[in-house]
C-alpha cells in the first residue's frame, strides 16, 4: 500500500492513481482525494502544485472521427478474409503458409533487431583503398581475372578461394613476421592454418579481420557500399582501420571497437556510415557433427537442455530467462529441421516467441506452470 504522506511533488506527478484523478476526474477518485486532503491539510499546497504540473503537460490530441475508424476496421476485415484459404485445403496449406510467415519474420527481425556498434572517436572521411594499402610495399600479388573461383595456397599452409575479379597480395616474408597480413580487393574464402602466436589478418578497405585459425569469407569490392565477413568455423575479430601517415598496417594491432564474430554470423560494414552490423545467416549451418542432430528427439525434456543443444550445434547464443522457463518442457522431434524451424517448433511448444538481436537469439516467453 502506498503511503501518500511520504510523497513529494514529483512522486505525486508520477503516480498512476494521482494521474488518473487529475486526468479522468472520476467520482471515486474525487472522494478519495478529498478525504485524504481533509486528513492531511498540510498537503494542500503539494497536491495543488502537482496538479498544476500535470495539467501543464496536457496534449493537443485530435480526435479520430468515428467513420474513419470504421472504414479502417472494415479494411482490415477485408484483408484478413482475403487471406483465408479455401476450407478443404487448410491443413497442409495453412501449415506451409505459417512456416513461410515464420521464416519471413525471422528475416525481418534480423533486420529490425540489428544493433549498431558506433565507433568512438572522430569519424574519418578517409577511404582506405586496396591501392593505398598496398602502395610502396613490396608484395606478392595474385589476381583472378577468370570467371571461376581460383584456389591458392599460402606459404603458411593456409588456403584461399579467390572469387572472380578479385585480388590479394601479401609480403614475401609473410609467414616469418609477427602477423600474417593479407590485402584483399574483391571476395575470398579463407581457410587459415592454425598459428596461435601469428595472427592472420585480412585488410579489406577500412576493416581488418583478425583470426588465429579458422575459416571465413570476406567480400570487399571497391564498388560495393558494404564489406561483409562470414564465419564458417572458429571465431574472428573485426575492427576498422584508418590509414594514418607514419603508421604501418602492423600498428593496427588492437582496437577497442573490435567486433567478435562467431560461426553463422555475418558482419556487414557500411562504408559510408562506417558502421558494423551483426546478423545471423538466413539458414545457419550446424557447426557440430551430424550426430548432434540425430540426438535431437525430446520427450518432456527440460527447456534448458533443448536450448543448450541447439545453441551448441549451431554455435549461436540463445538468450532466455532460465528462472522463468525452468518448468517448461518440450516434446518434439527436431531432427533434420533447419535452425529457424527448430526454434519455431520449440517456441511454439512453450508459447514463446523469439527475436534475433545482434546475432543472438532472444526468447520471449511468459513461463510455464
Amino acid at each position: 500500500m502506498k503511503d501518500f504522506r511520504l510523497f513529494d511533488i514529483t512522486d505525486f506527478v508520477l503516480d498512476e492513481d494521482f494521474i488518473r484523478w487529475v486526468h479522468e476526474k472520476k467520482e471515486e477518485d474525487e472522494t478519495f482525494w478529498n478525504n485524504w486532503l481533509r486528513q492531511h491539510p498540510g498537503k494542500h499546497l503539494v497536491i495543488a502544485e502537482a496538479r498544476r504540473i500535470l495539467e501543464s503537460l496536457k496534449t493537443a490530441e485530435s480526435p479520430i472521427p468515428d467513420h474513419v475508424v470504421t472504414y479502417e476496421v472494415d479494411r482490415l476485415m477485408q484483408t484478413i478474409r482475403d487471406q483465408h484459404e479455401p476450407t478443404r485445403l487448410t491443413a497442409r496449406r495453412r501449415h506451409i503458409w505459417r512456416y513461410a510467415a515464420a521464416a519471413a519474420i525471422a528475416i525481418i527481425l534480423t533486420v529490425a533487431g540489428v544493433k549498431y556498434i558506433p565507433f568512438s572517436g572522430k569519424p574519418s572521411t578517409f577511404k582506405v583503398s586496396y591501392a593505398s594499402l598496398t602502395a610502396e610495399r613490396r608484395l606478392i600479388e595474385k589476381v583472378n581475372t577468370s570467371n571461376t573461383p581460383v584456389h591458392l595456397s599460402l606459404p603458411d599452409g593456409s588456403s584461399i578461394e579467390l572469387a572472380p575479379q578479385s585480388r590479394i597480395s601479401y609480403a614475401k616474408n609473410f609467414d616469418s613476421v609477427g602477423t600474417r597480413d593479407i590485402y584483399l580487393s574483391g571476395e575470398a574464402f579463407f581457410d587459415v592454418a592454425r598459428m596461435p602466436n601469428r595472427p592472420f589478418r585480412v585488410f579489406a578497405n577500412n576493416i581488418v579481420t583478425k583470426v588465429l585459425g579458422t575459416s571465413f569469407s570476406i567480400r570487399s569490392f571497391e564498388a560495393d557500399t558494404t564489406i561483409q565477413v562470414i564465419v564458417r568455423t572458429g571465431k574472428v575479430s573485426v575492427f576498422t582501420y584508418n590509414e594514418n601517415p607514419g603508421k604501418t598496417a602492423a600498428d593496427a594491432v588492437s582496437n577497442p571497437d573490435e567486433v567478435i564474430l562467431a560461426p553463422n554470423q555475418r558482419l556487414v560494414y557500411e562504408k559510408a556510415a562506417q558502421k558494423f552490423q551483426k546478423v545471423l545467416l538466413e539458414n545457419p549451418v550446424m557447426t557440430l557433427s551430424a550426430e548432434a542432430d540425430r540426438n535431437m528427439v525430446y520427450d518432456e525434456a527440460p527447456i534448458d537442455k533443448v536450448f543448450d543443444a541447439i545453441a551448441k550445434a549451431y554455435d549461436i547464443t540463445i538468450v532466455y530467462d532460465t528462472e522463468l522457463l525452468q518448468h517448461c518442457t518440450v516434446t518434439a522431434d527436431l531432427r533434420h529441421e533447419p535452425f529457424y524451424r527448430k526454434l519455431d517448433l520449440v517456441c511454439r511448444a512453450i508459447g514463446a516467441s523469439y527475436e534475433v538481436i545482434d546475432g543472438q537469439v532472444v526468447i520471449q516467453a511468459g513461463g510455464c506452470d
Partner: protein
Amino acid sequence: MKEGLSQQEVSWLQQLQQNSEQALAMLMRHYYADLFNYAARFARDESVIKDCIQEVFISLWQRRETAGTILSLRYYLLRAVKNKVLKALYYNDRKTGLDYFRGDYDFFHEFSIERIIIEKQISEENAEKLKRTLEQLTKRQKEVIYLKFYQHLDHGQIAELMSVSRQSVYNLLHETIQKLRSLWHTAFITR
C-alpha cells in the same frame, strides 16, 4: 491473469486465439485513436500511418495462436506501430536511414497551452513562460511525457520502447518536472 492486461483485453486475446475476427475488430476500434495519435508524432503522412496500423493488426492476426504470450497489449501495439512507421519513414533513406535505431528520429508533439490558459485563467505572462518552457523540452523528453501521461505505460515499458535505460526514463521525467516546478513556484497562483 497477467499483469498489465485488463479483463477485457484478456478476453479479446482469448477470442483472438480462437480465430475470432470480431475480437480483432474490437481491438482495433479500441486502440485506433491512441495508435494513430502516437504514430502521428513520427509521421505527417496520414496514409502512411493508416497503412502501418493495418499491417500491425494483420500481423497480430497472423500470429494469433501465440497471442497468449503478449504481456501488455497496449505496449505491444504501440511498439509494433512505432517500429512500422519508423521503418517506413527511414528504411529507404540511405542518408538518414537506420539512425532511428539510435533514437535519432523526429517526435512532433504539441502541448495544448490554450486550454490551460482558458481553464486555469493564468496570466498572459505566465502562459508565455509555460510555452517557452515546454518548447525547450527535447524530443525524447516529449516522448517520455507522452508515453507516461497519455499512453500510461510503466517506466520499464517506456524504457524498452525508447531503447533507453529505466534510469534515463526517470531522469527525463524528473528534469521536466523540475523545470515546471520552478516555473510554477515563482509564479504560483492560488485558485
